[in-house]
């Protein structure tokens, strides 16, 4: 059971810690290491010389860039707008000049560059003209508040990065009974939510009040872990200041992964979010404390989401601490602000030790979902020993907080039997890493699940693309056939016209003859017409008539003159 410096006990033994609360299956008691980064208060990391703002810092569609290199931007200015329903805009974290819109290193396990807006800061930190603060939010329609939250680019700051407005908007279809404010640190080492609650309880609570106004829940619970007495006291003080009896602060036992949305709901209410469903389906919405504070800033101060609290920690950092970091700041800058690396630093992770991932370079920027920058040493987090065969001990099953069968999932993921893996509820796995942590054979189980999940998505995408190609091909064949049909029809029509014209081929000649005959006939008729009004003419007039007749006679052609 020796796993570095951490220890685990199955929490089955101390159910009394839950009191009137409920319990989820499995989970681990992990050594917290929170204290490492809690010695110092939250500081400001400052303005870095370069800000790299990826267009994708959230779950959903990539934002659409609105600026071009050379543009001068102000702090808080909209740089990229949300595209589609599930998306979030990106704002400038500080004033400066856009120098590039290009692919840049991005915090993702793949290490693939992602499009980003690069700003060279001018250090003046000039803010854009902000709109009106919505201080009287409780007199406002919820749709206006939701729009403000959307425009401010707020996403879940707990780590998943789901657009907050979309989550809150689901209350349109579901009546919300309970609002859960998640102040439970999900993982060891991370303490950003803890310090935020200690230092900015007022902001959080004001955010909670706004969320209450939007959602109109019957109850509201702020959940804190039992190892955060200072945060709990601060939140209790803030709650009692509001005299709102609907808000309750609840202390939950620190069992990993209580900070997971589904697990926390289970602990607080005893209810289970349906598989493939959302908490809103059972009338619950869960928001992180950081998100609540961001909502406060957006609504009351009209400040978009341009910074977040980041825990920079691990024994690979000289002075671990929590900092308010501008989005787009590089990991390297944030670590320098903490005194730099120690000599024996080994790996750099984004997120905690359980669910985080190693980044390929420290030039990746802090994005909206970066709750923790973890620099670890080899002694602190040794590289995993080689995996041994699965011995089917069943430990993974006993710790799985989603009540799955990790072993079965492992076998199916390994053999590429994705259908069977899905039958065993692969997509209910929250990738918490408990199973891999307790595995005596050191099998990197979570990586198998991640691979299987993404493989399923890729296959679905390929299937969709194939369906589109099939439709396009069918449409093309139909079009070609139609064109051919039309050509054939045109051909027949032309033939018919030609044939019809062929019947009357003699007509022009006949007509010419007819016309000539007609002319002669008319001429004869003309000659036969007797002149009128010739009675009683003067000799002068008769002479004139004779002259005209003679001239006419002379003018007519010799041929006709013969007639």
């Amino acid at each position, binding site marked *: 059971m020796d796993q570095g410096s951490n220890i685990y006990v199955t929490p089955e033994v101390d159910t009394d810690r839950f009191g009137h609360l409920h319990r989820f299956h499995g989970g681990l008691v992990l050594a917290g290491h929170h204290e490492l980064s809690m010695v110092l208060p939250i500081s400001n990391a400052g303005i870095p010389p370069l800000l790299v703002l990826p267009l994708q810092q959230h779950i959903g569609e990539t934002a659409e860039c609105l600026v071009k290199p050379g543009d001068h931007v102000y702090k808080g200015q909209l740089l990229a707008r949300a595209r589609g329903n599930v998306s979030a805009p990106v704002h400038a974290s500080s004033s400066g000049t856009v120098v590039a819109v290009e692919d840049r290193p991005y915090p993702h396990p793949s290490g693939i560059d992602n499009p980003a807006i690069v700003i060279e800061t001018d250090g003046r930190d000039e803010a854009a003209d902000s709109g009106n603060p919505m201080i009287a939010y409780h007199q406002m329609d919820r749709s206006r508040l939701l729009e403000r939250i959307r425009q401010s680019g707020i996403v879940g700051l707990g780590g998943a990065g789901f657009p907050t407005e979309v989550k809150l908007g689901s209350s349109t279809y579901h009546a919300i009974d309970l609002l859960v404010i998640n102040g439970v640190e999900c993982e060891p080492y991370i303490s950003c939510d803890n310090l935020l609650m200690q230092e900015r309880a007022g902001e959080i609570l004001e955010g909670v009040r706004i969320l209450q106004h939007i959602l109109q829940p019957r109850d509201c619970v702020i959940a804190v872990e039992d190892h955060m007495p200072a945060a709990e006291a601060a939140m209790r003080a803030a709650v009692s200041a509001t005299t709102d009896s609907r808000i309750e602060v609840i202390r939950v036992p620190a069992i990993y992964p209580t900070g997971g949305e589904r697990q926390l709901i289970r602990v607080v209410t005893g209810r289970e979010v349906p598989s493939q469903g959302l908490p809103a389906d059972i009338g619950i919405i869960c928001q992180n404390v950081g998100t609540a504070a961001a909502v406060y800033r957006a609504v009351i101060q009209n400040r978009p989401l341009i910074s977040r609290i980041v825990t920079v920690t691990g024994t690979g950092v000289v002075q671990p601490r929590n900092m308010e970091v501008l989005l787009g700041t590089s990991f390297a800058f944030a670590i320098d602000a903490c005194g730099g690396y120690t000599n024996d630093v080994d790996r750099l992770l984004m997120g905690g030790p359980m669910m985080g991932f190693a980044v390929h370079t420290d030039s990746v920027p802090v994005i909206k979902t970066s709750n923790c920058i973890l620099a670890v040493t080899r002694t602190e987090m040794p590289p995993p020993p080689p995996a041994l065969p699965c011995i089917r001990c069943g430990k993974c099953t006993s710790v799985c907080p989603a009540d799955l069968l990790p072993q079965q999932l492992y076998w199916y993921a390994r053999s590429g039997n994705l259908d069977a893996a899905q039958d065993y509820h692969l997509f209910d796995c929250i990738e918490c890493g408990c199973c891999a942590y307790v595995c005596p054979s050191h099998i990197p189980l979570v990586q198998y699940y*991640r691979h299987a999940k993404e493989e399923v998505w*890729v296959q679905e995408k*390929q299937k969709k693309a194939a369906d589109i*190609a099939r439709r396009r*091909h069918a449409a093309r064949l139909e079009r070609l056939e139609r064109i051919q049909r039309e050509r054939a029809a045109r051909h027949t029509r032309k033939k018919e016209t030609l044939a019809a014209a062929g019947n009357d081929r003699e007509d022009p000649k006949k007509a010419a003859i007819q016309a000539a005959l007609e002319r002669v006939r008319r001429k004869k008729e003309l000659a036969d017409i007797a002149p009128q009004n010739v009675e009683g003419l003067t000799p002068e007039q008769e002479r004139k008539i004779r002259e005209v007749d003679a001239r006419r006679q002379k003018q007519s052609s010799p041929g006709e003159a013969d007639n």
Partner: protein
Amino acid sequence: MLAAILTLGILAALIGLLLGYAAIRFRVESDPVVERIDALLPQTQCGQCTYAGCRPYAEAIAAGEADINQCPPGGESTIQALADLLGQDPKPLNPEHGEHQEKTVVVIDEEVCIGCTLCIQACPVDAILGAPKLMHTVITGECTGCNLCIPPCPVECIAIVPVTQSIDTWVWPLPEVRSAGSPAGHPAHSTDR
């Protein structure tokens, strides 16, 4: 004895008539097997299987005229899926038809293109835009990578490029098995549902 034979005979005749009627009345117009085979094919419409497209190939497989290992773009996974569907043994891809390669798309060098429209006529999924004597371009998202546009091009301005990986298409790799003794096979059959 006679009564029993008569009863069964009449019953057999009645049921036979009923089945015969049902076969005519509820006849399925298209062959559902063709649809199901077609659904498994990658729809590149490249013709490497020697048929005019994926559907003709599906029809040929259904008619027993073509083998299931003639589709290079689909590769092993398509052969496996076809084998499962048709209850045959999977076999390796027939090298006569080509090798399985990672998906590519084509791009037109717009500087060189003379606007002859020959590639537009060759594209099976209408993924090339353009007009006579005007520049052509490929709608990358619709390109299936069949490469049928390349032979007709008189100025060789069409290039094959691999699909660029993005974080949306990237897949966590399976962990490398580094242990000395690899896990003992696939014991799932012992506990399978």
